[in-house]
């Protein structure tokens, strides 16, 4: 999706229940909405294993968005932390890593995401 269109888009969960978070960008949508792909154009995997909630009303001029690496994403409701997401991989507790497989790979992936964003 184009950057500008993204910046214009607002994604609202249609229901307050059964929210699921995108593993790629933490976007929260209700489970029925996940029949559609993620508006940020990232992976279509999603999970209910998330914590916290951020509502972005401006993803470009927001420290929260910067901290969450969500600059330039569509405006909408996001999770603060998504378990199993590469974005939050670094914050995962030690014992979880074993299940994750190769640690290094995870971290590399994080960097990729950043650069992706910058390039865009």
């Amino acid at each position: 999706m184009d950057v500008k269109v993204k910046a214009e888009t607002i994604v609202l969960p249609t229901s307050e229940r059964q929210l699921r978070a995108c593993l790629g960008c933490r976007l929260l949508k209700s489970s029925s909405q996940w029949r559609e792909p993620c508006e940020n154009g990232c992976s279509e995997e999603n999970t209910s294993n998330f914590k916290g909630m951020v509502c972005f009303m401006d993803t470009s001029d927001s420290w929260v968005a910067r901290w969450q690496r969500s600059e330039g994403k569509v405006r909408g409701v996001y999770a603060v932390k998504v378990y199993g997401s590469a974005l939050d991989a670094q914050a995962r507790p030690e014992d979880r890593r074993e299940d994750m497989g190769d640690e290094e790979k995870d971290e590399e992936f994080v960097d990729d995401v950043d650069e992706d964003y910058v390039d865009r």
Partner: protein
Amino acid sequence: FSRIPRLRVGVRRTRNMYSGDEDDSNMQEEVPEDDENDYDGGEEKGGEDEDGEGEGDGEGYENEDDAGDVDEDEGEETRPSKRPKLDRSHFFENEAEVSGDEGGEDEEDIDEGEDEYDQEFVDSRNDDGVFAAEAGVHHAFQGEQLSKEELGYVQSLEQRQEAYQTGAHEAKDKRIPGMEDPKLFLVPCKIGKEMEVCLRIMKRFAVRERGRADKRFLIKSAFTTPASKGYVYIEAYKSDHIQMSLQKLEGLKVWKSSIVPLDQMVAALTIKETVHMLRPKQWVRMKQGVYKGDLAQILSLEDQDTKATVRVIPRIDFAAKGQNRGRRRKPQAALFNKQEVEQVDPGSTDRKPDLRGGFLTVWRNSKFDDAGFLIKTVRVSTLQVDAVNPRVEEWERFRSKGDDMDPDQEGGFISFTKKKTDFRKGDRCKVVSGDLMNITGRVTKVVGDTITVYPELEILNEPLDFNVDELKKIINEGDHVKIISGKHKNETGLVLAVDEEEDILTVFSDVSSVGIKVYASNVVEAAEVSAGRDTLGNYRLHDMVMLGPGNFVVIVKVENNGFKVMDTSGKIHSARLQDVGKKRFSRNSVAYDSQQNQVTVKDSVNVIEGEHQGKKGEIKHILKFYLFLYNRRLTSTSGIFVVQARMTLLVGQRLRRHNEMHDQFAAPRPRMQRPRMVSRRQRNSNLGEAMFQERVIIVRGRHKGFTGIVKDVMETTYQVELDAKPDRVTVRKDWVKSREEVEQSRQRRQEVNPYLGRETPLIGSQTPRRDDGGRTPIHDSSIQDGSMTPGPVPSTPSSDAFNPAAYADDDNNEIYTPAPEDAQTPRTPLTAPGTTTTPYTPQTNPLSPYTGGDGGLGEAPFTAGPATPVTPTPNTPYTPGVQDEDEQGDGGIPNDVAVIYNGQRGVVRGGSSSGYEVEFQSGERRTVTESKLQLIRPSKNGLQVKIIKGRRRGQIGKILSSSEESRVIQLLDDHEMLVFEAAALAEYVPA
């Protein structure tokens, strides 16, 4: 990118101002031409968008953003030559930060048509003049040219670009919030509604976004984390923006917002990993449904750890098959028994393979394992993971049937509960892991989790450090311990049994006198004996409290977060602290006993019929016609039991009543006619007769030694007008003695041998005095004949005065009768020198528990006399822990008991009319009179003792623990454990 933060607008205008005000030409010079070229297409539009509405249509943004991007790229390449100048001004860097990513964009703005901006500036001053002025000041200070300021932005842009490219680490630095970022505000909201509020904010945002421009949101984001319970964070440049955007939003208290300091912003957005990750075999508690509160064990985790398969003891409602839903009770937890179910309902069960291996029985869509546990897959959020603290009983239910529980689980159950042993200096411990396994030692130092142990090994005589986890406490049978956590916290007791394997101790509680099971890690060795908890909140043990409207109950046990209470039917209920209502005081309540005697609180009554017949108690509370009585013997309910008033008889009233009824009904008792007041007055007058206007000496307390005259008689105190001061003081009755009494005791103390007191004529001469001073009219009128006391010869008038405790107490009360022998001792010689009621008294120091050591022989009972009828409590103060079972007047010292004679230790080996045959250590045997023998009061644990009083007289036991006045002993023959007063035991020396 497309949003225009106000700050940025301001900054841009600042620069416009410079260009206008100060040096137009300079500006022109510095601005590189190529930039202008870049913006051919977009500049007009972009500029308009920004300065005009702030937000424009999609097209406008596109242009602008494109322009910005291009500019960013170029910044690096096209202007390196101007960089050196930047270093001069720190301010630039700051400014650069302000502009942030948008530096390039700003640049572009300046590059765009100057004229337009010059025009604009005039207007802009009004709304954003602050920025302009501020920047202007700086500018003046620096003495820099406008263009250099621009360079600052360029540089910042470059830095930012570099940062992104040099990797995540540096990028993270850039993520840290700065002064130029929007601020975080903490806004309270309804607890538990944080997410709801966030979604509501988002909805309002979406609506406003489509509406009027001036209504649009200026806030940047809103968020909540699990840690921000009751709060929502809002990101905005100004709190005004929050007010504007979010006022009157349901559930949000905008007016209470506060700013989050810069250094706490990251923490606010960080979710701490507080949940210990669930692992299989971990213990949890169910939070929902019929299993709410039940202990469960995790078998496996599914769906990214959001679901867990647990096993739990099933609660199957066999009877109600889904019907009668309304009034369903929680079914009993019991293991599933396949055979039984098959019998009732053949073919209803099915067997299916389990994912974890093995087979499960399926019945009515529920799965059960072979041990009978229900296997259930639930969401992790419905499990309580923290503070599970399985109780021993619970866990044992799992263990008893859960034979499939891995025996190789390291540390068994304890390790899962993560119970950290609380080591204290001096504890004995054992190393349970590592090279030094099984070494025992004593803790010499505790620093955090590091325990320094001095090993009990000859070859290792230096202290070693261990981690808490490497050590295990050693508690042995017979140790006296204090429980330091859990339900029985702060109780103390004696360890009866140790289950080495599981570290579970059976402790005989000093408080409840029952065996309780606790983990070894939860106890410490302690010599102290706890009285148990007796207050919680504003409530005390034995308070009468309201539990529901009009329902009054008496607290019989205080627990850590609630009470056990007794209602008027004698049933015991549990009550949580928050359910307990106001206290009720029975001070002014009265009731009437079976003989229509008025009874009030603190009176002692005998129960003459019903379930509690034969018991005696002190009235603690009166509720309508129910009496809550207190009798120390009833340990299970902390001494409280409840009877109807008509089933009781006021102590000391029995005989008198009958006499009166038949002989003296012509003189009706005033107390019956006007209950409260009259009785009070009567009491006063009764007592007053004894001491009123009497000259007394105060023998204890602050005014000890003062003489005075009793001017008023209260229930338990006298008002004494002191001779030395023009003052009236209130003195406890037992702290006051008449002058004569003092004289007497002084004389008696001068006796060569107090035990031979029976021979001194002086004592005889005291008797009349005692009649006057010690005896109270009540005695005269009601229990004149003293038939209430078992031992003494009834006809002696003085006997009453001398043993108030005896009739204050009950004949039937075996244990708590306050050692009547002791009280009677001084008197006995006067009345019946030959009676057998005094066998032990010469040995027991008659002063000890009763007199508080303030006087001579028998003073305490003497002075207590007057107080007794009014306050039937004196048996309490006077008999601390006395548990004399002796009412049968058993005489003499039994054989094989250690005694002291003339400082020499000996053993009684026989008795005759002339005395006791005592065998001394030398082997010599002598016959000694009882009065010259002193019994040895054993207190050492493990010592063998003979019971010398009560109905168990003659039995032999072993001391398990001892306190000042009582001993816990275990009988040798039937291993029963009993509590005795110290005086009832003597050291046993087998022949």
